[in-house]
């Protein structure tokens, strides 16, 4: 790749009408870069294959790190990496980097050849030497940042679980990256607890925490949002994007402007070359002092706000307009209300399909962006390269070191709990209404699922255990460490009262107590073991001592149930107790419904039918329904019973603009058994603390009364749990790949 030494878009500067000084000699206005002697900039070969915001494997040789001094259009550009490394570095690509606190080192993620992986390298700016950090050569390590304590925090697809496989995004198929850290001397390589999907773009905050982008995928939620984590990979907390506060589907590349305030890129998940619009996020109460606007106090996701700093730039993947373009990243130079930013920006649509069709690539260059006037002053634009991640080469103050205690007595487990589950910003619980907390493990297609788990868009889920809530609202449980979990508050009938709307995980040996059940995030959590009932007894063992391969169960009783395989845990109940009336002959006489494609007039008719793939004499022939209409597969070739209860694929119905007519009814609401028609009709019995068939959840007469044999308490529990876990057809227990022998 031929590097142009400099290609400065002077003409463009005039067009933009920018006037802010960039530190050029003779400029009376010192400008936001006046105290910066030099910039470090990453130059990568231009490409179009990084549309997905989580893409990290793209490789094209020819990257380099350069220093621009002074940081202006007429500055001198000096390559600093990696020709000095010799032939081994001839074909390197570099995906990101960070400068140490003392500005004497750079850590970068680099890949030396097509057949290889991204590893971590340290560049000594005084000796010019490059040393590779000792990471697994068979895995990728990306997005390194320096954090206090001589650690480097990174993202990697290496797996913390011995013998395990990295989570794959079920719907986008890609292998996820997770958190890890390593000392700058190469020691203490540690991998952190895993999320169920992607984590990318960490950056350090002034209070010593790390903020990063996390793809949250729980049921219908599909968005890249910001999360906080301590540098030791503990104390994960939501930061921005949920609870209706997000600016776009994906918020990426957050960099702190001032405490509690961040500049980030808001964009669509795909086709935008990981670029988008600039947003200024304020997580707490906004205060202004001496020209510095910050938002550190009372940080809470629900109260977070943002401002669009580039309002013309789309936050979707709609092509951007000429002269509007998209921003790849931004670095704040001050904390004014409308800050000055170093940005990487490209003109044009910055949308992969249009670019490729025109045989073009986005051309990112470095600019000084005045967000008050929304003007750009060009600093560097090599037309052959992406010029990205401009950072001042200067010392910075290291934030405080944050470290939490690891409890070695926990072994491979972690301990979780809440002080008072009734303390919640999301729901007002009636006193005494919560029996316990259902602890649920999540997994994805990496366990061999070749298809979706069902029609409801939930991932694979498995019950780890139920932790009773004690008199003061507290609870405590031991869980498998490093495993994605989510929690549900349940009543004495085992029905979900509220689902924590996010996956979280705790590091092996980590003990984390929440204040409540998604409590006010501005409250300090004070744990006083002498005052909290949960500490007066041993924690519930929520399969904490089980390996992944053992965290399942073929026994579907209340106390043994893990996953709920529809064909094995639910269908036999239907076959025995339901299909006599709700078989293919529909002797119950429930009116059918139709699905119509309004464009073609084509329609199909389906009726409530609880048959599965089993043949039940005179009632079920083992066939599955044809639910293809209007170009949509509404049933994913699952059974009549599953589709009758869980409904047709709702996204497909919406996508196809299909019209439901007749007696269409949703019998089960995923994650909400309590309000599910079927459950209200059946009227489940008490599960906790003891199963009692004489105590019903609702005052109405149970459906089975006078019609046949009622469900047993265990059968009720399986049905309720199936719905509350999202209503999936598949789980570990009926994983299609398990049918395959290793032969």
């Amino acid at each position, binding site marked *: 790749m031929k590097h142009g030494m400099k290609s400065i878009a002077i003409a463009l500067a005039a067009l933009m009408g920018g006037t802010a000084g960039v530190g050029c000699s003779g400029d009376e206005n010192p400008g936001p870069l006046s105290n910066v002697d030099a910039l470090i900039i990453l130059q990568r070969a231009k490409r*179009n*294959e990084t*549309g*997905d915001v989580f893409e990290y494997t793209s490789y094209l040789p020819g990257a380099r790190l350069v220093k621009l001094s002074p940081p202006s259009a007429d500055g001198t550009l000096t390559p600093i990496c990696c020709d000095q*490394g010799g032939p*081994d570095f001839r074909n390197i690509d570099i995906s990101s980097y960070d400068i140490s606190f003392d500005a004497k080192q750079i850590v970068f993620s680099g890949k*030396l*050849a097509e*057949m290889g992986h991204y590893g971590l390298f340290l560049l000594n700016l005084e000796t010019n030497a*490059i040393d*590779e*950090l*000792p*990471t*697994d*050569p*068979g895995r990728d390590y990306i997005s390194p940042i320096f954090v206090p304590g001589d650690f480097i925090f990174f993202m990697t697809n290496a797996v913390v679980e011995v*013998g395990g*496989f990295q989570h794959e995004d079920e719907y986008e*198929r890609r292998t996820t990256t997770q958190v890890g850290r390593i000392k700058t001397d*190469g*020691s203490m390589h540690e991998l952190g607890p895993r999320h169920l999907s992607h984590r990318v773009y960490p950056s350090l905050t002034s209070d010593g925490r790390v903020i990063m982008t996390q793809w949250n995928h729980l049921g219908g939620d599909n968005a890249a949002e910001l999360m906080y984590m301590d540098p030791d990979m503990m104390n994960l907390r939501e930061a921005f994007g949920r609870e209706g506060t997000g600016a776009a*589907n994906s918020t990426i590349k957050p960099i702190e402007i001032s405490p509690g305030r961040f500049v980030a890129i808001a964009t*669509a*998940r*795909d*086709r935008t070359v990981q670029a988008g619009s600039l947003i200024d996020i304020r997580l707490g109460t906004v205060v202004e002092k001496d020209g510095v606007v910050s938002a550190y106090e009372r940080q809470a996701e629900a109260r977070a706000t943002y401002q669009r700093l580039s309002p013309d730039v789309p936050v*979707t*993947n*709609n092509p951007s307009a*000429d*002269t509007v373009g998209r921003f790849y990243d931004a670095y704040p130079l001050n904390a004014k209300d409308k800050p000055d930013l170093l940005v990487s920006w490209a003109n*044009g*649509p910055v*949308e*992969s*399909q*249009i*670019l*490729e*069709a025109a*045989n073009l690539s986005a051309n990112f260059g470095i600019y000084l962006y005045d967000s008050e006037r929304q003007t750009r002053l060009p600093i560097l634009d090599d037309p052959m390269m992406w010029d990205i991640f401009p950072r001042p080469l200067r010392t910075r103050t290291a934030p405080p070191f944050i470290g939490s205690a690891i409890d070695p007595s926990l072994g491979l487990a972690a301990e979780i709990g809440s002080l008072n589950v009734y303390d919640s910003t999301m729901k007002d619980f009636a006193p005494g209404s919560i029996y316990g907390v259902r602890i649920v493990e999540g997994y994805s297609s990496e366990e*061999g*699922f*070749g*298809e979706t788990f069902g029609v409801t*868009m939930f991932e694979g889920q498995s019950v780890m255990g139920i932790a009773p809530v004690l008199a003061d609202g507290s609870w405590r449980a031991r869980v498998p460490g490093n495993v994605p979990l989510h929690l549900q508050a349940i009543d004495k009938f085992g029905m979900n009262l509220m689902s924590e709307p996010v996956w979280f995980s705790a590091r092996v040996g980590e003990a984390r107590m929440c204040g409540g059940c998604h409590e006010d995030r501005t409250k300090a959590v004070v744990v006083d073991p002498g005052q909290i009932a949960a500490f007066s007894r041993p924690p519930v063992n929520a399969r904490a001592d089980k390996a992944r391969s053992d965290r399942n169960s073929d026994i579907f009783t209340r106390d043994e149930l893990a996953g709920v395989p529809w064909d094995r845990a639910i269908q036999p109940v239907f076959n025995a107790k339901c299909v006599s009336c709700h078989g293919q002959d529909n002797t119950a006489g429930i009116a059918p419904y139709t699905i119509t494609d309004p464009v073609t007039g084509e329609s199909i008719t389906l009726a409530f039918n609880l048959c599965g793939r089993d043949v039940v004499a005179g009632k079920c022939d083992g066939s599955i329904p044809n639910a*293809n209409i209007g*170009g949509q*597969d509404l049933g*994913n070739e699952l059974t009549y019973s599953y589709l009758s209860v869980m409904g047709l694929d709702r*996204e*497909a119905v919406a*996508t196809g603009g299909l019209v439901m007519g007749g007696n269409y009814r949703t019998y089960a609401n995923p994650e909400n058994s309590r309000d599910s028609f079927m459950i209200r009709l059946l009227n489940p019995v008490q599960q906790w603390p003891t199963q009692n068939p004489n105590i019903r959840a609702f005052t109405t007469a149970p459906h089975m009364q006078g019609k046949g044999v009622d469900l047993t308490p265990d059968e009720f529990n399986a049905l309720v749990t199936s719905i509350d876990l999202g209503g999936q057809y598949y789980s570990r227990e009926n994983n*299609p*790949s398990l049918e*395959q*022998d*290793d*032969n």
Partner: protein
Amino acid sequence: MKNLSLKLAAVAFVALGATSAVAGVGGSADKIHAAINSRSVDAIVAEIERAENLACTECVDLVATLTAHDRVEVREVAAWWFAKRRSLHKAMADQFLVVLASGDTIAVRNAADFLGRSSTFRALPALRAAAKRELGPEARLAMVRAVKHMHLRGGNEVLTAVMTDKDARVRAAAANAWREIRKQENAAPVVALLGDASPLVRAEAATTIGGLRDRAGVAGLEALVVNDPDATVRRNAAWALGEIGAASSSVALGKASGDASGLVRMTAKVSLGKLH
């Protein structure tokens, strides 16, 4: 930016009002068509993902065509799309199983990528048989990808068969994939590859032996970490010795700690500290 504007005007037809990017929502045959016409791998992949639920005849035809695309990313997303449609998947898989037995290199490549990425586990016997056929590296690399994706030990025989391929990329890919098999007990077939003529293969073999912590590879790794002319091989060998942790490796790793290459030094030092 004049050139940019002119070129974009010429392809304005592809701007079909892209909507918010949520997988599985908003797909259409027209959008897949436009993405294919643009030749953008990124756009094709995005639109197939978005068409997760689409089952129109035109979509089936379009996606079926993509199973023979020249880019593996596209072939893989096409297989993923079919994997969600049981009947269609079965029909396609049946055809591809036949291809494995009789197709030419490119046809077998496409078949293996489809069967692997769609987790068609019943294809393992056919893949094992195909691995013994005289086929080009494209086909054999695809077979390795297929086995690697399935993670099943039934694929081991495919990997061992192609570890003798004359193309170093194939041997290296097989060495790499060996580590990705669920419940893989040792790296025995890979140990022999430590003496391969290609540094690419030696590097991958070292990584796999280290990843599986197979002590049978210690002697070979100790020789490589000191003597191999390729720095990446020495580096991977140093890492592998640290993972295995045999005390006997201290001499070799001690020497490697002073390696002239920055790729090797720190890894060797850290591995030295891991020895038991």
